[in-house]
């Protein structure tokens, strides 16, 4: 029997977090539904305090369920407290769980309603908050509770800025100073240029030159400092970079102009400061794109709870629990893991039975049974059961940390990739220097115009050769591409990754969670009776279990009955009493244990399903087998199309999995995906495969699990899925914002276009040189013409870069 489409009734959503709620199980209150107690209490709190308009203000409510609350431990926040002069405390925190401007408004206004809090201000860009209060009026704990009760989680923060923040701030001030003085210098330069044509008072002309000199000096000393410093350190290794070109261009035109004041030539102070200002603008824009990427990644990482329930035995033998942040867990500590939570540290189970989803580590989609004495690994997820675990390897010793260490190794061995512009400039700078020398030789030795004029002509070559357009070529294209890509649904952490992705022609996909959804789904089922009441009984029983297979069964039907008795055996199945009937759902073995008999046609059906690579779940009512469900991890809808599209464009596509070759072949074959398959691969081997492939090709790895982290780093470009583990988000150079594989092909197109535009920009910037340098050599070019040329080529680069957005 084919699976019928589940009827699309009116979707019922939680009033707070907007996640879908089953009307029969959700909490109903008047005309509103809630998915859980947490959402309900937050909803009431918000409304009672008069902030109900939060629900109309918010623009992004994905994952809006309250973040798991930490016991606000004052000690934990000690490092982020600062005592102000008047005895007030200033508390710096990062608030996680913020999604849009409405959240910030809600937290700020509800906290400020309390008169004891003097100031509460959240930074919209990085969600860092500063709270000022007097410790005599209100305790740190109470302040933190103001935030946690609304469903957000405060984390301690120091005033230390991230590298990106600092870089951007630094460029901002240098650019600000440069822009101010450039405007002043321009005023006098334009006056002098007009004077050149129309004639002007000699004294005034001289005064303007002196003023330009005075105003240009701070720009050269302060704003251009990073260029001089960086080009000097690059020069030590005989490298020529963009910085070298800027330093030579701005430096020589400044020195030339100083000499020109006294020798009576035209000055070029405006060119000198203009170059610095425009290049700094480019750098500032680029730093902003980096900071934005960094923030988006940090936001994805902060969505996950990072707490653990530690068990403490009191002296009288009584057990108590405290919730602490994971990094405070020590070796030998006992902690509890319950259904749905992640294992916090490597350890051994000392009490309890459970099923753990280890697909993040192994790629095996079905959960593994664990009992007392079994090893569990940090980062894996508990599907059902409750266990007490003794932490064995915490921090650097855990398996997760070993992977992290390999990721670091792979990262440090990665050759820094020169971007297109730097590559081009590396060849261009020596060329300019040679032309300058040749022009000096010509004028001095052959034309014999004297040392003074010869030097001036040679220097003007250097000055004119440094176009602002070249410095703007990459940053403008990158910022434009970053915006376009985040619209498409992917965030690249830096501009180099965008360029690298354009060259990629060898694609590697992880199977579980990437090509497939990672969720179990019923693909087919066989029932003895076609009446709906039997199906209702089975799906109702399955609904109360959190096992992925049960969830899959529950999803095919919406009607729900209450249960009278319900029992779940981890790793085997469930038995329930519903409407006075006895329902058993579970594996074939579980059926046999409950003395349920299999008929021949069912056995045949089961055999066929197993051949197809499905997992079998049987259901019996009153000890008679009534149905069999075939369950498997289904392939994402767009996977086959994306892969064939990539292959059509001439790319090589491979699939890497920790799963067995047979299973991989069956699943991929069913979906009609033809690709190279690497099966039975360990996390470390995944890294090796990518490392080896990189020798001959430009590779990209798409993955989501802990087991993909090393491969994500080893590849030229690593792309992680949205709901990936933290470590893979951190090691990837790009993160998908939606779990849709078609973004991979779409963004590849955008990146190729970006690279083309960068090359066009460089070409036009270079064309300017092609015309201007010969003119400079011959001493024909007029300063006004040269300035006009320069502005034109910069303008071209700006408009050309905007084309990426289209």
């Amino acid at each position, binding site marked *: 029997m084919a699976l019928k489409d589940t009827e699309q009734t009116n979707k019922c959503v939680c009033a707070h977090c907007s996640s879908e709620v089953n009307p029969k199980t959700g909490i109903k209150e008047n005309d509103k539904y809630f998915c859980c107690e947490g959402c309900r209490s937050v909803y009431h709190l918000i409304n009672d305090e*008069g*902030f109900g*308009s939060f629900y109309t*203000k918010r623009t992004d409510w994905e994952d809006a369920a309250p973040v798991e609350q930490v016991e606000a431990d004052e000690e934990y926040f000690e490092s982020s407290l600062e005592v102000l002069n008047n005895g007030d405390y200033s508390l710096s925190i990062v608030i996680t769980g913020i999604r849009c*401007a409405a959240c*910030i*408004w809600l937290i700020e*206004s509800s906290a400020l309603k309390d008169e004891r809090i003097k100031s509460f201000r959240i*930074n*919209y*860009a990085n969600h860092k908050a500063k709270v000022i209060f007097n410790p005599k009026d209100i305790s740190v704990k109470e302040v933190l509770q103001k935030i946690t009760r609304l469903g957000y989680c405060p984390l301690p923060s120091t005033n230390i800025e991230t590298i990106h923040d600092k870089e951007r*701030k630094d460029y*901002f*001030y240098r650019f*600000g*100073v440069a822009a*101010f*003085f450039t*405007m*002043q210098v321009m*005023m006098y330069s334009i006056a002098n240029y007009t004077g050149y044509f129309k004639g002007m*008072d000699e004294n*005034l002309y001289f*005064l303007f030159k002196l*003023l330009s000199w005075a105003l240009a000096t701070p720009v050269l000393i302060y704003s251009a400092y990073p260029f001089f410093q960086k080009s000097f350190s690059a020069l030590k290794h005989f490298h020529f970079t963009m910085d070298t070109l800027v330093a030579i261009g701005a430096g020589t035109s400044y020195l030339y102009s100083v000499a020109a004041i006294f020798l009576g030539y035209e000055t070029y102070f405006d060119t000198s400061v203009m170059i610095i200002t425009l290049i700094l603008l480019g750098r500032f824009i680029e730093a902003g794109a980096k900071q934005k990427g960094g923030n988006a990644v940090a936001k994805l990482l902060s969505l996950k709870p990072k707490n653990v329930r530690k068990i403490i035995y009191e002296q009288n033998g009584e057990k108590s629990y405290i919730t602490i942040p994971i990094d405070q867990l020590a070796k030998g500590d006992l902690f509890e893991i319950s259904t749905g939570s992640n294992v916090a540290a490597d350890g051994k189970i000392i009490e309890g039975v459970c099923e753990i989803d280890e697909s993040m580590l192994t790629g095996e989609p079905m959960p593994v049974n664990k009992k007392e004495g079994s090893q569990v690994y940090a980062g894996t997820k508990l599907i059902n059961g409750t266990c007490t675990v003794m932490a064995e390897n915490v921090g650097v010793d855990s398996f997760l940390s070993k992977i992290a260490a390999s990721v670091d190794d792979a990262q440090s061995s990665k050759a820094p990739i020169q971007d297109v512009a730097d590559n081009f400039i590396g060849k261009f700078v020596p060329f300019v220097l040679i032309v300058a020398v040749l022009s000096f030789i010509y004028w001095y030795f052959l034309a014999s115009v004297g040392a003074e004029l010869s030097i001036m002509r040679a220097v003007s070559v250097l000055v004119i050769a440094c176009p602002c357009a070249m410095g703007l070529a990459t940053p403008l294209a990158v910022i434009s591409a970053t915006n376009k890509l985040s619209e498409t649904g992917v965030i690249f952490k830096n501009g180099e990754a965008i360029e690298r992705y354009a060259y990629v022609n060898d694609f590697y996909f992880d199977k579980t969670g990437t090509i497939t959804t990672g969720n179990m789904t019923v693909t087919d089922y066989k029932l003895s009776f076609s009446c709906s009441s039997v199906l209702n009984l089975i799906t109702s029983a399955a609904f109360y279990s959190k096992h992925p297979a049960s969830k899959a069964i529950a999803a095919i039907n919406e009607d729900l009955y209450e249960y009278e008795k319900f029992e779940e055996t981890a790793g085997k199945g469930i038995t329930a009493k519903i409407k006075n009937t006895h329902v058993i759902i579970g594996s074939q073995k579980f059926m046999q244990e409950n003395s349920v008999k299999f008929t021949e046609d069912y056995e045949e059906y089961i055999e066929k399903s197993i051949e197809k690579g499905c997992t079998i779940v049987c259901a019996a009512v009153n000890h008679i087998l009534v149905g069999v469900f075939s369950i498997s991890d289904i392939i994402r809808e767009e996977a086959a199309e994306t892969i064939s599209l990539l292959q059509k464009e001439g790319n090589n596509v491979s699939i890497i999995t920790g799963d067995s070759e047979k299973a991989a072949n069956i699943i991929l074959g069913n979906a009609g995906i033809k690709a190279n398959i690497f099966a039975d691969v360990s996390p470390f081997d995944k890294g090796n495969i990518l490392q080896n492939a990189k020798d001959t090709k430009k590779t990209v790895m798409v993955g989501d699990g802990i087991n993909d982290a090393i491969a994500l780093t080893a590849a030229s470009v690593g792309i992680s899925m949205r709901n990936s583990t933290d470590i893979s988000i951190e090691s990837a150079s790009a993160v998908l914002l939606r779990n849709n594989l078609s973004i991979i092909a779409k963004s590849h197109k955008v990146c190729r276009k970006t690279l083309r535009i960068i090359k066009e920009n460089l070409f036009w910037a270079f064309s300017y040189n092609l015309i201007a340098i010969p003119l400079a050599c011959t001493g024909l070019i007029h300063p006004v013409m040269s300035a006009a040329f320069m502005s034109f080529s910069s303008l071209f680069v700006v408009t050309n870069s905007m084309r990426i957005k289209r």
Partner: protein
Amino acid sequence: MKSLFVLILVSLVVGISAFLVFLLAGKKNQFDDIEGPKYRMLNDDDDDDLDNTKK
């Protein structure tokens, strides 16, 4: 001719004082959160509405 020198002086004073304002704003952390003001501006308006609906 004299007026020209006065004007130059005035332009320098205006330019440099604007620059000092920029530095002062930077020192007072005015540029730390350049995203926020556009949202805060809208939220303040709504607070009044909120009080009205409360009655």
